[in-house]
């Protein structure tokens, strides 16, 4: 599915250079559900952004479904983000002035798909929000907003779902609801990588990668 080989990422903050990732190598197979944990500042988000083709590594090789991503240009990366990857963010990142339905349709618009409404309604239903399609984000509870975001991530039938602390803004009960959605998706064959701080969220996944200071400390 995806393969990272000696990935490094160095941020330049003025004169000083901050090494956020220092030689990450790992493979994630199709159909896996993996959690990434580690202390704050250990490089979890940085790694997720690189896997998600939102950012480019400073050095190293990244292959996603056989494609050497580190060689692609911005437009090709946008295409991959649109077609192959679904993002779920800690802060939901929904467009506040548009309905749940329009939010879910967004990736379809950039993918040039037809039959958008039907497809968007279908995924909204699959995350249990059929009754909320015309609501705006401000009219939805946190858990519901995150489900809209999951629907948006799913709408283009990606091969990989990336979630950076998807339950970070939710209470325990809602977190469990969201995790059970991910669990169900994984059971249907979706590859899922998620970042979390909480051990009981990580417990949902069969495999956990531990980061520390930009390196993999353990992978089990």
């Amino acid at each position, binding site marked *: 599915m995806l393969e990272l080989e000696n990935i490094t990422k160095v941020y330049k903050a003025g004169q000083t250079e901050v090494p956020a990732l220092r030689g990450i190598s790992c493979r994630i197979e199709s159909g896996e559900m993996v959690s990434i944990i580690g202390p704050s500042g250990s490089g979890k988000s940085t790694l997720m*952004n690189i896997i*998600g083709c*939102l*950012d480019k590594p400073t050095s190293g090789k990244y292959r996603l479904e056989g494609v050497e991503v580190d060689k692609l240009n*911005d*437009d090709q990366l*946008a*295409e991959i*983000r*649109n*077609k192959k990857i679904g*993002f779920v*963010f800690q802060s939901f*990142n929904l*467009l506040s*002035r*548009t309905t749940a339905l*329009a939010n879910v349709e*967004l*990736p379809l*618009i*950039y*993918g*040039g798909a037809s039959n958008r409404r039907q497809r968007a309604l279908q995924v909204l239903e699959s995350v249990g929000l059929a009754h909320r399609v015309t609501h705006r984000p401000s009219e939805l509870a946190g858990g519901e907003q995150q489900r809209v975001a999951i629907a*948006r991530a799913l709408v*283009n039938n990606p091969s990989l779902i990336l979630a950076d602390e998807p339950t970070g803004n939710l209470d325990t009960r809602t977190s469990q609801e969201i995790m059970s959605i991910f669990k169900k998706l994984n059971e249907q064959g979706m590859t899922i990588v998620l970042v979390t701080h909480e051990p009981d969220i990580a417990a949902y996944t069969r495999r956990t990668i531990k980061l520390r200071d930009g390196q993999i400390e353990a992978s089990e």
Partner: protein
Amino acid sequence: MKLWDCFSTALRALLSNKLRSILTMLGILIGVAAVISVLSLGSAQAAIVEESFATLGSNLIYVTPPELGMSGVGAQTTLTLEDAQAIAQNAPSVRNVAPMAQTYAQVVAGGESLSNTIIAGVTSKAQVVDNYGMAQGSFITDFDYGARSRVAVLGSEVANTLFGEMDPTGQSVRIGGRQFQVSGVLESRGTGFGFEDMRVYIPLSTFYTTLATAQVGSRGDSVNMISVQAKSGDLVESAEQEITDILRVRHGLREGEDDDFRVLNMASVAAQVTQVLGILQLVLAGIAGISLLVGGIGIMNIMLVSVTERIREIGLRKAVGAKRRDILIQFLIEAATLSFCGGALGVGLGWIIVKIMSVIATNLGFTLSVTLPGYAIVLAVGVAIFIGLISGLYPAVRAARLDPIESLRHE
């Protein structure tokens, strides 16, 4: 991304902040309205000028005293009836010569009276040269001139004031205290050049015997103006030269001395007036155009604010697959839509302004036939969209260049 989706995305963004969109549009709207009203009022004005000159007839040359323009009433005149006769006899390019002496006098008929009316002493040639049409009766004839008849032809305004709906021909009027019989009424010329509607015409010979004393600096055979008709449009210039030569000799002017008269050629006057009006219109349109420019700066300003405000949105769009081009086009369309709508509404507002002005003009007694020239619409809206695109370009490029991660992290 399909073009239609670009449009609907941009429109949705504009609609989600209606008040701001409307306020942004306002700048362009006012600019375009200003340009439109200037252009269409300008074209109406040009039409009026053209019409005025057309009624005067072509091939016309006016000879007047040097210090005054065409009316020449009350001026110390240097021209005489003999000057006119000399031109008629000796200038080969000239067809007709119509001398005219003028003074002010009171005109009374029945219970009505008009003070300070221009009384013009003319010959029968005046009708031919100045192209007068008769509403009633007939103009001053050669017989009237020879017999020094006490007949008068009234301008339409004068006839209307003195006699109302009644036909004045055959009626008597008192001009400067003397009895005259009305022989005809001129057709109205509207608010043209020479104020013919407000004049009274009598035979020049009668003028000398009855009214000439009232004229300042009168010599008994002086005239205030000589209207000359050239044989053809091509001969206007040579006629002018001939007239100048004849008058210089007659007035005993030596080489190097200035003319003591002025020769005006209607065609060149018309050309000059049209040119001046054209320049004036350009200047006004330019000033109006500046407000369009200000509107464009307004659009740029708002688009920059909007890009900054929507950084997270842009980051999210990029994260779910928007390409640079998609973001660029969205913001360009937003700017172009603002300016197009502003432009279209501006054309409407401009048209309303022009209509209101023409109604006001009608109430003031002018006929202002305003048309909205097609080129003005195309020009104004085209320039508006162009300005919108130009001012939207920089903000759009900034939006398109944003880094998705940094944008998503933006608070």
